[in-house]
């Protein structure tokens, strides 16, 4: 009995989840929220401005219907700038390689790395 308990305990302790996964999960949630807010704003603004109007009542801005201009163009422009700030303040910059270290030193030994280290002949 205690043997199996020790074994399952050892199995649980051996596995430590990569800490980068938690940050990845948070970024996933942020992306979903961004998508939801964008779609909601796009449809909401278009409906609020142009919903249920006859064709004669719709105003035109730069040749486009006003509901299209405000929702797609202005909303799209604002939401195209938002990801820059999202990434700058909310996303975590992390190395992507398997071991979690700097990704320059990877599978392919690049010549740049060799020149920095003392060669075995020295």
């Amino acid at each position, binding site marked *: 009995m205690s043997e199996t308990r020790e074994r399952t305990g050892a199995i649980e302790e051996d596995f430590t989840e*990569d800490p*980068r*996964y938690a*940050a*990845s*999960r948070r*970024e*996933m949630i*942020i*992306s*979903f929220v*961004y*998508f939801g807010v*964008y*779609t909601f704003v*796009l*449809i909401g603004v*278009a409906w609020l401005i142009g919903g249920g109007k006859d064709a004669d009542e719709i105003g035109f801005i730069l040749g*486009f*219907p006003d509901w*299209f201009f405000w*929702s*797609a163009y202005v909303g*799209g422009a604002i*939401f*195209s700038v938002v*990801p820059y700030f999202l990434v700058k303040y909310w996303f975590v910059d*992390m190395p*992507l*390689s*398997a071991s979690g270290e700097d990704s320059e030193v*990877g*599978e*392919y030994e690049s010549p740049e790395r060799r020149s920095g280290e003392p060669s075995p002949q020295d």
Partner: protein
Amino acid sequence: MRWDIIIPLAIYLVLLIGIAVWAFNQRQAVQTGGKSAEYYIAGRGLGWFILIFTLLASAASAGTYIGGPGFGYEWGYGWVLAAMAQVPATLLVLGVLGKKFAIVARKLHALTVTDFLRHRYGSHVVVILAAIGIVASLMVYMSAQFVGGARILQEITGVPYVWLVIIFAG
């Protein structure tokens, strides 16, 4: 047959083939163990700038050239607004799948989604079903691309439609 349009297109195709031959020769220099990564994903060294063009190329298809304008003409700006929903989809794909996939793929040395499935489930049936599904859906998608591209080029250059479909498929 408008030769003033066909000739630049042919020169562009020859240039593309030349780049492919050059890349093939470059590939001989990659060390063993890295050749698949070099072929499928350019050795993981392309960076963010090429990623932008990859996404744009994914968006530019026969649907964008023929289907989209056709729908827009018939249904008006309402359809264009609905198509705007694919704008945040780019960030959604990169944000949801990007980091986790990148980290896990480097650990597993996985290059495609099928590799992921093989590592996760360890079953031949899953991998074969996934491959069949991918091939079948790509067949459907590519046939639409052939038809769309051949129609456009037929209107522009005057080359008969059948020839263009054969050239595209080849």
